[in-house]
C-alpha cells in the first residue's frame, strides 16, 4: 500500500510549486492558475486524511465525521469555482481599463 506520507509529500510539492507561481509570475492569469494548484494541493491533503485517518465510529459530540474530508473537499471545489469566476472577471475588467494584465502595472495606489 502506498503510505500516507507519500500523498502528503505530493500535496506539499504541489502547494510549494503553486506558491512559487503565485509569487513569481507577472501575468495575472498565471497567478490565478498557480492559486488553482494550491487549492488542488489542499484538496489532496483533505482527501488523504479522510482516507487514512477518519475513524469509522460515527458520532463524536453528536457530529458524524465519517464524511468530513470529502465534504470539505467538495466545498473547496465550490470556493475555487467562485473565486476563479470573480477573479477572471476582475482581470477582464482591468484589461479593458488599462490594456494590460501584468499584475505589477496595477500600481496607482502606490505611495
Amino acid at each position, binding site marked *: *500500500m*502506498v*503510505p*500516507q*506520507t*507519500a*500523498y502528503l*509529500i*505530493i500535496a*506539499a*510539492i*504541489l*502547494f*510549494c*510549486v*503553486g*506558491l*512559487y507561481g*503565485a*509569487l*513569481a*509570475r*507577472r501575468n495575472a*492569469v*498565471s497567478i490565478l*492558475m498557480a492559486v*488553482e*494548484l494550491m487549492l*488542488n494541493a489542499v484538496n*489532496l491533503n483533505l*482527501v488523504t486524511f*479522510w*482516507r487514512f*485517518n477518519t475513524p*469509522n465510529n460515527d458520532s463524536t459530540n453528536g*457530529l*458524524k465525521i*465519517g*464524511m468530513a474530508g*470529502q*465534504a470539505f473537499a*467538495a*466545498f473547496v*471545489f*465550490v*470556493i475555487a469555482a*467562485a473565486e*476563479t*469566476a*470573480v477573479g*477572471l*472577471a476582475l*482581470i*477582464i*475588467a482591468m*484589461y479593458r481599463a488599462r*490594456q*494590460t*494584465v501584468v*499584475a505589477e502595472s496595477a500600481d496607482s495606489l502606490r505611495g
Partner: protein
Amino acid sequence: MQTIDWVQWLAFGILTLITVGGALAVVIDRNIFHSALWLLVSLFGVAGLFVLLNAPFLAAVQVLVYMGAIVILIIFAVMLTRRLMGITESVNSQWWIGALVSIVAFLVIALVLAQAGSGSAPLLARDPIATLSNRTVADFGAALVDPAQYALPFELASLLLTGAMIGAIVIAREDA
C-alpha cells in the same frame, strides 16, 4: 498482498509524474496558453490520485468542474486579454525570493511529515483504513443534507455561488 502492491505503486508513480510534472510546467512555461494546458494535465493527475484514494465521486467532479469549466474559463480569459504575440518576461523581478520561500516552505513541511510519520506512535498511518472503502456516494449525499452534519455549509455554498455568479457578470459587463 504482493501482487496488488506493485500495481498500486505503479499507478501512484505515473500519477505523481503527471501531477508534479504538469505543475512545474505551469509555473515555468513562458507561453501562457501552454501553461493553461499543463494545468489541465496536472488536474487530471490529481483526479487520478483521488481515484486511488477511494473517492471516485470527487474525481469525477474534479474532472467536470476543474477541467471542464474552470480551465475553459481560464483559457477564455487568456484569449480575451492577449495583446501582443511577442514574448515578454514571464517572471517578475523578485522571482528568486519566491523560489527561496517555496523551497523553504517545502522543507519545513517535509520535516514535519517525516517526524510525524516515524517514531513509536506515529501520527500518520501507514495503511489505509480497510472498511472506509465502503463509504459510498449515498453516504456523502446524506452527509450533505443532514442538519447535524453539513447542511448549513451546503446552503451557504449555494449562496456563495449565486453571489459569485452575479458579481462576475456585473464586473465583467461592458458599461453600455
